[in-house]
Structures are given as C-alpha cells and as structure tokens.
C-alpha cells in the first residue's frame, strides 16, 4: 500500500480507510484507531532498526514523548504578552479575544523563555547531526490555557521567529496540568505561580518565569542551565535547619551528615535529563565542544557544607560542569559571568537579584523558603 504524502495531508486517502469500516470488529473504541494512524504516518517509508518513526509534513522527524526531553512552555513566558494581559484584566475575556484576533498578524515579541527555547533547538540540531535516528531530543510543547481563538496569532508568531514548535495544547481555560502529564513533561515553565505549584505537587519539575526589562546576551550555540542547590536540586531539609536554628547549627548538621546523601529536589530529574544528553556528545568525542553546560550556584561553602552537595551529586551519578560555592555571597555577579539561559532558585530574593543583573531567573516555589517569602512580602507591604 503506497501513500502519496500530498494526498494524506490534504485528506484524500486512497486505500487507507480512516472510517470505521476499517477493522473487522464492530464494537468501536478510538484507541484502536491509533494503529491505523501509524500506518498512515510515514511520508517517506524509511528503513529503521525495528522502531516505527513518526513523521509530519516535510518528512521531519518527530520524537515520541517518552523518549524526548519534553519542555512545556506557556505563551506568556515564550512571548511577551503584557499588552494583551492588560486588556484581559481591564476589559474581560471577550474583549481580550477580539483584540487578539484583530492583531493576529502581529507576531508577539520574545519573552523570558525565548532564548532558552532557541538554545534547546540549537542542541537538537547538533544531536540530529550525530544521531539522525534518535528520538532523544528536546521536544518543546506550547501549553497554554488560552482559547483557540488566539491560536492563529500564536502560530503566526512561531512562524515569524522560526521556532520549531509543532505540538501545542490550547485548553480554552481548563487546567493544563493533566496535559503536562500526558506529554510526559520533564520541565514546565509558566508565568502563573499557582500552575507551577500544582505541577510541582504532581511531581513535574516546574518554575515561574518573570518578564524583565534588562536581559543580557546569551550564547546561541551552547545551552547553559544553572541551578541553586537546596530546595532545587536537593530537598529543603538543610534549609529547614538553617531557618529554624541558624547558620551555626546548619554547618554542624551538614558536617555531621556529610556522608548521608541529601534527598532529591524538584529539578533533579531535569538535571539528569540534561546529563543523559551530554553523555551522547561525550560518546562522540565532543566533551570540550559540548553544546550543553550545567552549573551549580549555591550559597554553600566549598570547604564545608558544599562537600555534602558534591557527594550527593556524585552518588546520583550526575555530573555538573561547574559548581560555584558562594559561601553566602550574592549570586547576581556570578550569574552575570556565567550567562545561563535560565537559572533556577527557590528564593525570590535571589531570583530578583539575578534579574537585576540581566540573568533570566526562574522561581521554583518549593520548600520552606516559600513560607519565608510570604512573610517577607507581607512585611514589605506594611
């Protein structure tokens, strides 16, 4: 059975029965149709070692969610939508949608997650060169609770910026969290802290992003991801000690427990996913030239409390390219030197500090620091 790709895309299918008369059985379930669809998928049948590849128009290769490192981004962090947000808040949803449709052919400008997404695509290019058949790639999915009315503008914008995003969910107001799971999301970035918290509680690595006016230039060829240690890569157990009993007790506790591994934090899995991709470059002799670089930027000290962090990472089999122990010094200047595409921290104080110096910082609303954040905010308001 040969399928002309043009015909498949335009809906004219000869030979392939999409209708219900296809199978012998009469009781229908949609899941069975999946297999029918697979047969129709390949635009150019290509011999692959055992595995059926999924292709879309243009014969571009597309990964299965379980094999890819899926990064889900909301429209508000991928693009700048402040003007539209204002319309929504002041004039309501109907006016907001009317406004969006009116400006449909005006692409949005890049948002805080944009450079990060571009860097992911650069890594994909390199991965495809080395491993053309592999599905171990970054897969970027737009997950937004916008209505489909905004869809055309979003698609036009993606086209305009030449982004490689073919998958999206526009939920028209319902929670996107279920879809994150369906896409086997490895990292979720959103402007909505509540959604981020919900994702974290479902075990999905997530962080809140903010739009900042000052953004320093970042590399277009090497993806750089920086992580805070406690309550991001590691659990917040040590931070709890510090908050409850102070710095001395913290040091004592860390020293006493130096050989006990820290528990994992919400972003550990994402670091792991990055590590797996890094190893693919190393396997092809590209360690020095690796387009992914990871950083640990922690307030811990190298000589003391940092040891436990390093031992934990080693025990987990995770390599981190650079570990920066600041011993409590401000993170902003260090981050400005590193120029990561994204920096994850559980404390808004550090996120804001980083942003002031032009680093794109994302807040991970996890652990004991959140209660502290809340207290700080309310005292500031007084």
């Amino acid at each position, binding site marked *: 059975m040969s399928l002309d790709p043009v015909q*498949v*895309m*335009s*809906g*004219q*299918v*000869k*030979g392939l*029965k*999409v*209708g*219900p*008369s*296809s*199978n012998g*059985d*009469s*009781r*229908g*379930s*949609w*899941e069975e*149709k*999946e297999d029918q*669809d697979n047969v*129709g*998928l390949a635009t150019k049948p290509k011999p692959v070692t055992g595995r059926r590849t*999924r*292709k*879309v*128009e243009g014969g571009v290769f*597309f990964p*299965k*969610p379980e094999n890819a490192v899926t990064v889900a981004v909301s429209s508000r962090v991928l693009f700048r939508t402040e003007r539209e947000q204002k319309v929504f808040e002041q004039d309501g*949803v*109907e006016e907001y949608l009317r406004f969006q449709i009116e400006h449909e052919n005006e692409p949005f400008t890049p948002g805080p997650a944009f450079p990060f997404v571009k860097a992911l695509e650069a890594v994909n290019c390199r991965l495809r060169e080395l491993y053309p058949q592999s599905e171990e790639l970054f897969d970027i999915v737009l997950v937004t609770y916008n*209505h*489909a*009315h905004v*869809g*055309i503008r979003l*698609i*036009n914008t*993606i*086209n305009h910026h030449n982004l490689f*995003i*073919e*998958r*999206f*969910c*526009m*939920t*028209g*107001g*319902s929670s996107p969290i*279920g*879809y994150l*799971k*369906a*896409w086997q999301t490895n990292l979720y970035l959103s402007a909505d802290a509540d959604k981020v918290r919900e994702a974290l509680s479902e075990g999905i690595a997530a962080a809140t992003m903010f739009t900042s006016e000052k953004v320093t230039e970042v590399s277009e060829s090497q993806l750089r991801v920086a992580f805070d240690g406690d309550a991001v890569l590691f659990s917040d157990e040590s931070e709890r000690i510090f908050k409850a009993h102070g710095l001395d007790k913290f040091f004592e506790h860390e020293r006493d427990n130096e050989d006990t591994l820290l528990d994992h934090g919400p972003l550990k899995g994402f670091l792991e996913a990055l590590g797996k991709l890094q190893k693919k470059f190393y396997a092809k002799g590209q360690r020095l030239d690796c387009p992914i670089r990871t950083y640990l930027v922690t307030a811990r000290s190298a000589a003391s409390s940092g040891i436990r962090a390093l031992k934990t990472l080693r025990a987990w089999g995770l390599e981190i390219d650079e570990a920066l122990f600041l011993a409590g010094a401000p993170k902003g200047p260090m981050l400005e030197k590193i120029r990561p595409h994204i920096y994850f921290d559980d404390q808004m104080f550090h996120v804001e500090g980083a942003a002031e110096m032009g680093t794109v910082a994302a807040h991970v609303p996890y652990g004991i620091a959140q209660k502290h954040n809340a207290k700080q905010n309310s005292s500031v308001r007084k």
Partner: protein
Amino acid sequence: MVSTIQNTDVKQKEADRAVVVAVTSRAVFDCGADDGDEVCEVGVAFPLLQALQRVNERLLEENPSESLLFDVVLITSDSQQQQQSSRIISSTRHHGLEISSFCFSSEEDFTESLLKNNVHLFLTTDRDEAAQASQKGVFSALLNGKVASSEQLRVVFCGDAVIRTDAEPPSASQDAAQSFWAQLGEMRRRFGMLDSPLSLVLLTSRGGRESCGTALQTLRSRGVNMDEAYSLAGAPRSPILSLLRPHFLLINHLQD
C-alpha cells in the same frame, strides 16, 4: 419496514432548523432480560443526551423562541430491542429524556429511517453501523465507549482531514459533515466565551502547527470558532483523548 412514533410528551422541534441527532437505543438504554421491570438501565449515551438537553435548555434561556436546537431521535434496529419497544418508551419517560421520536426498523433498512428523519448526525457504538450510514451520506460518529463525565457537551473534531482539495467533488457524507459543523458553530455563537454548555475542540494528530493553523482558519471561515486546539504532531492520541473527555469524536469519513 420503518416506523416512526412521535413522543407526545416532548415539544416537537422545527424540522428545517433543528439539528437532528439520531442515537441507537442500544447505546442509550441497556435493556437486559425482561425481568418484569418496566424501566431499562441507562447506557453509555445517556450522559450525552443529558448534555444535549442542557444545551437546548440554555439556548432557550437565551432566546425562548430559539429554533436552532438539538432534536434527538432514537433508532431501534436491533430485533431484540424491537421487542422491548414499550420498555424503551417508558424508560425515556422515566428518565425524563427529551427524545422527540422513536424510529423502529429492521437491521437492513435502518439507514432508511435515518434519511427519512433528515438526520444530521448519527451516533452509535457500532463501527459497521456508522460505516453503513456514512456510505448513504449520513454524517456518523462513534460514541465514546467510556462514559464522559462533564456536564458540558464536548465535541472533538479530528481536523487532519478538514481541508479538501478542490479537485475532488465533495461526497454526500462530507457535505453532511460540513453542514453539521456549520450548525454547531452557529449554536456555539449563541453563548459567550465562559460558561458555555458546549465546547468545540480541534485535535490534529498528524501534521504540525501549520495543519492545525490551517484547520482553525478553515473552520473559522465556515463560521465555526473552536474553543480548544491540540496539535499532537504524531504523539499518541489516547492520553490526550482521555483528558478531553469528548462525548463524541468527529472524523471526516472519507470514502474510497
């Protein structure tokens, strides 16, 4: 032999304006062995009928003289069910279902009853029945085997086949599909963005963002504005479908 009985308990809809939805009685009622019980258990299509009814109620709330309403017709072609016709009718009454007429026919000529009743959409759990009806030019769809739980009527359209090249003349079934969609689009416009009793969902499984975008534009040009859109670009459909919880899934049946 085809016979139609009008349900006198229900106000009949305007023939040329209503959206006639035919459902097989097998899907609506689970009439087990006649154990003396007057009333049958409800089947998988029951929540769907409730959702259709809610849409009608809301339409009439917006405009008491609204004529663009769902008109539900029950098709019984199964000989076993035929014998239970009085139970079917009394079950309808018992559950307060707004079914305007009951059509009884044999298995061979049930399509005739669909055409006679000017059915715009035929819903069944049986693939073969759907195929047969399609071949006669009646837009058909398979019912969700798992009971959908949402109150809102959720209609999912698999948009991979929306665009038809102009070279091919439209088949009767495609025309039926298009006119059904136009009616749904008009119904949807009666409500605002929030708190609508029906939601129109576009799902493209194969093509990437371009084909989803083109589908959105094509549908909009036909007066159908989707509420939600999902582009899968080859990812498995089942996890997404189980979240979408559609009452039915519409695919353009393309005939060979």
